[in-house]
């Protein structure tokens, strides 16, 4: 992406300065072109990518009425989002049934990590300042990344909006106010300012509160009652400042400071006959990251970044069964991270990237026997890409070394692993956008701090959990019949997870063990079509369908041998359609999910019903004196479907949202 921009500038400059000396008596006049800054980033191509890639832009997400990142991710194919309900409920993402631990989350190019729990709660990322969300399975084509990004089976990447200045202004301001059902109030602000000719600063802030008391239908055998979800409130705010600077030698510097804070009720699962729940959770997260990128010449480029992350959370349960009347858990994590990547393109067909990352993580908490663990992680990756005519081959080898340290008790062993991966993309006919792709990747995930040390469950002898991925797919895009644009991607995959880290009971005490083998077969099919209906009416349709068969192969003698693993539907899909008209834009999305099981055994008692959730969004944009206004109304789940993603964590029925924004 950056290479493209650099080359464009060079062309424009070179075009003006080049040919003077070579010619004599040239009657054509030489014009010096003004330098043009191309500020749009190239959208990654889902069709050309050697590994399955799904992209959704911030504009599209806003138009379709998505509230949080979880809404966007749910509609990707091959993804299972575990949603515990409500606006503040925990939402984790698992790609192709591999589990949330194998999915990496990136925020503006640097990984978001949680060494304690290993899973990222994507529900807390608001979409107010997001410009693009991508989900890549296997390996993204952009190999110029930190080493850590090669370590996950799938990567969910969030890019925030770069400042945009309209006209000759050197500032821009966006204000948005959103409100909706269950007491939702969500104002947000985005201010950007050009500090110098090639330096700009942006500041974001958003605040969210909701009481979350939504009604739901509870079925207990033949007894069907209407209940209300209590203790489901959320109060959160987030602020972020970003600095972007293009230095005189064309190197780029970016810096970010981010703070997030929330308090929420944890309503827990619905328990028959007992509505009492007083668990609460407080979160605070601060991080600062700085990045530097320089392209020395067309052959060499360097990228580096530093990050410091601090997270704190406090959990409280009020109940007289505790001696003090309540239980309070406090956790504090810190991470120091640095990465350096070098890109070398000797001739143009082959490029090499060598990237190395260092991370230091530590956890402290208020438990009586806390071992105050520390972890040093070093990851180095060597990638090579060959690209010529219709063939793209990527190869990668990641070396990971992890050293653990504890203040008390046995120290877990150091871990050393090599993870290879290779992907191939073939374009059989160069004049057609038809590609065949294959990839193989071997990844692992280390036990989290909770897996190793949590109270009694922790097991310091845990080995990493490994996942092997194989994928084969066909993609096509182009024009077809009356469609302006159409694309289809179809992939078939096989994954195998071994040494899966699961909690196993050992006479009253649960213990984390490497005791699982899961076989996953699946297929993802995605299609897009864009066409015009009348002169000024444009239609865009997206559809996706996923089939997954993820079975447990741990122990032949167990009753759940070859049963579908929990919370994995065999069939699921989504459909979204947008009608863009001059007077108003209308969007519709539907999410359909088949039956799944809450517990390992596939018996009727554990089955969760299938559901379909439909959302309708209407919006209108207009200009007035150079200021842009936008109004949007959403009806979420307009069929009032009573469903749950996680058993006994009911989701809201029909709800409404209204938002108004102004851009100066």
């Amino acid at each position, binding site marked *: 992406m950056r290479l493209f921009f650099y080359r464009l500038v060079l062309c424009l400059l070179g075009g003006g300065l080049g040919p003077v000396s070579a010619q004599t008596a040239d009657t054509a006049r030489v014009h010096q072109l003004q330098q043009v800054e191309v500020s749009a980033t190239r959208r990654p191509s889902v069709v050309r990518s050697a590994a399955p890639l799904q992209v959704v832009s911030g504009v599209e997400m806003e138009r379709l009425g998505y509230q949080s990142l979880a809404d966007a991710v749910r509609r990707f194919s091959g993804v299972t989002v575990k949603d515990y309900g409500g606006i503040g409920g925990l939402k984790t993402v698992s790609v192709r049934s591999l589990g949330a631990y194998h999915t990496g989350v990136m925020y503006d190019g640097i990984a978001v990590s949680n060494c304690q729990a290993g899973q990222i709660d994507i529900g807390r990322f608001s979409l107010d300042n997001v410009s693009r969300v991508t989900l890549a399975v296997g390996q993204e084509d952009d190999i110029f990344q930190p080493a850590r990004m090669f370590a996950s089976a799938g990567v969910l990447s969030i890019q925030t909006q770069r400042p945009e200045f309209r006209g000759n202004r050197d500032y821009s301001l966006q204000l948005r106010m959103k409100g909706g059902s269950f007491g939702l109030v969500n104002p947000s602000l985005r201010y950007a300012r050009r500090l110098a000719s090639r330096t700009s600063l942006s500041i974001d802030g958003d605040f969210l509160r909701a009481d979350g008391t939504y009604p739901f239908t509870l079925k207990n*055998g033949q007894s069907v009652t209407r209940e209300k979800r209590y203790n489901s409130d959320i109060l959160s705010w987030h602020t972020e400042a970003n600095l972007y600077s293009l230095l005189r030698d064309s190197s780029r510097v970016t810096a970010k400071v981010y703070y997030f804070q929330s308090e929420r009720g944890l309503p827990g699962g619905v328990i028959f006959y*007992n509505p009492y729940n007083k668990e609460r959770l407080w979160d605070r997260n601060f991080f600062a990251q700085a990045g530097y990128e320089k392209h020395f010449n067309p052959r060499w480029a360097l990228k580096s970044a530093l990050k410091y992350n601090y997270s704190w959370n406090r959990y409280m349960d009020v109940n007289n069964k505790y001696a003090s009347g309540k239980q309070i858990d406090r956790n504090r994590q810190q991470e120091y991270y640095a990465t350096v990547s070098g890109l070398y393109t000797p001739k143009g067909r082959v490029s090499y990237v060598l990237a190395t990352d260092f991370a230091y993580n530590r956890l402290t908490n208020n438990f009586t026997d806390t071992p105050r663990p520390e972890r040093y992680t070093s990851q180095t990756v060597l990638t090579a890409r060959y690209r010529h005519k219709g063939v793209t081959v990527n190869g990668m080898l990641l070396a990971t070394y992890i050293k653990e340290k504890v203040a008390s008790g046995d120290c877990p062993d150091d871990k050393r692993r090599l993870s290879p991966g290779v992907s191939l993309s073939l374009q059989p006919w160069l004049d057609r956008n038809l590609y065949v792709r294959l990839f193989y990747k071997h990844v692992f995930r280390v036990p989290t701090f909770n897996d190793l040390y949590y109270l009694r469950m922790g097991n310091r002898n845990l080995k990493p959990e490994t996942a092997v991925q194989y994928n084969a797919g066909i993609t096509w895009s182009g024009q077809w019949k009356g469609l302006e644009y159409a694309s289809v991607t179809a992939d078939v995959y096989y994954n195998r997870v071994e040494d899966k880290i699961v909690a196993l009971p050992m006479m009253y005490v649960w213990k984390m063990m490497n005791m699982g083998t899961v076989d996953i077969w699946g297929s993802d099919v995605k299609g897009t079509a864009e066409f015009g209906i009348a002169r000024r009416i444009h239609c865009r349709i997206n559809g996706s369908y996923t089939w997954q068969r993820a079975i447990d192969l741990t122990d032949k003698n167990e009753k759940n041998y070859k049963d579908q693993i929990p919370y994995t539907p065999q069939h699921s899909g989504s459909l979204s359609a947008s009608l863009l008209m001059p007077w108003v834009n209308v969007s519709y999305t539907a999410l359909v999910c088949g039956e799944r099981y809450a517990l390992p055994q596939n018996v009727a008692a554990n089955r969760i019903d299938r559901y379909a959730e439909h959302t309708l969004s209407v919006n209108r944009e207009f200009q007035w004196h150079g200021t842009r206004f936008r109004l949007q109304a959403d009806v979420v789940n307009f069929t009032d479907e009573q469903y749950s993603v996680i058993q006994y964590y009911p989701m809201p029925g029909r709800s409404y949202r209204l938002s108004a924004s102004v851009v100066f």
Partner: protein
Amino acid sequence: MTLWMLILCALAFTSCSDDDDDDVTVEEGIYVLNNGKMGNNNSTITYYDPVTQASDAADVYAAQNGKGLGDSGQDILCEGKYIYLAVYTSNRISVMTRDFVEVTSIALLRDGQPQSPRSLAYAGKKLYVSLYDGYVARINTSDFTVEAQVKVGRNPEGLAVSNGKLFVANSGGMDYNTPVGYDKTVSVIDLKKFEVEKTIEVEINPTILITVDNGDVYCISTGNYGDVPNTLQKIDPKSYAVTKVGNATEMATDGKKLYLMYSQYDASWNQVITYPVYDTEKAQMLSWEWIADASAVVKPYKVCYEPQTDRLYLTSSNYRTDGDVYVYKTDGTLEKKFGAGLNPLKVVYVK
């Protein structure tokens, strides 16, 4: 007109069907209380016929009542005309007829908080229940109201009646991870006055209490899963003297012998399970085990002795999939293995 009226009346009478057409009686035999998984509202009652040795995986409670039992059924007791079931997370005691048809559900709240019932005991026409917030309640078995509550130690678990007293094991389990730690007492409640008469000190984390024919009360302290192992102690019902007798994790009694299960973990979390027998009259551990072939049992969970069938029921559970129950004769021979629900906990005989 009159013909229509007649027809309407006839229809009206026939359409008044009885809602509770579940006056179906249940089979006589063994009923298994399955604890389920906490949070999944899947506690069930399943059936086993000791004569034909056939079992049924269907939930008897749901069949008889059209709704679920709730979350974490913890103890079941049959006395007189009724069956009492303590459902821990659902915070209620279900009172049912001998056909498992629910008569009433007793909710236990204190200061707006659920008290969470654990174990049940019956004495002198009263039902006693240990409540996890540190109380024991006495329930009237005629009108099923809570008559009185008495404060005991922290997180009381097992109950046993002996010599006109109710013994309560105070585990303190909810504070195992705080500086307060486990509790290590057994409260003795005088049944007439319904007051705590004495607090006996035992090994930490006492959970199970059993009374044998000679009146002695045996107590298992589960320890701390670390340096303090599962310990079996004898409490004298008159002098309240505590004697350490051996090690055990679970126990059942036929009145004379204690059939024990002792599960110990070595450093690499390998389980070593033994099944000793303790003779309460001779006051000694016997040399033989009550299971002839211990390797036949996978993931043992709880032990029960059922007097009507004179058999030992050893339940097995891996906490994730439906469990099994092994039926043993008291000489150690395995009679049958049958399937039950998730986490089978206890077995009762219902006529």
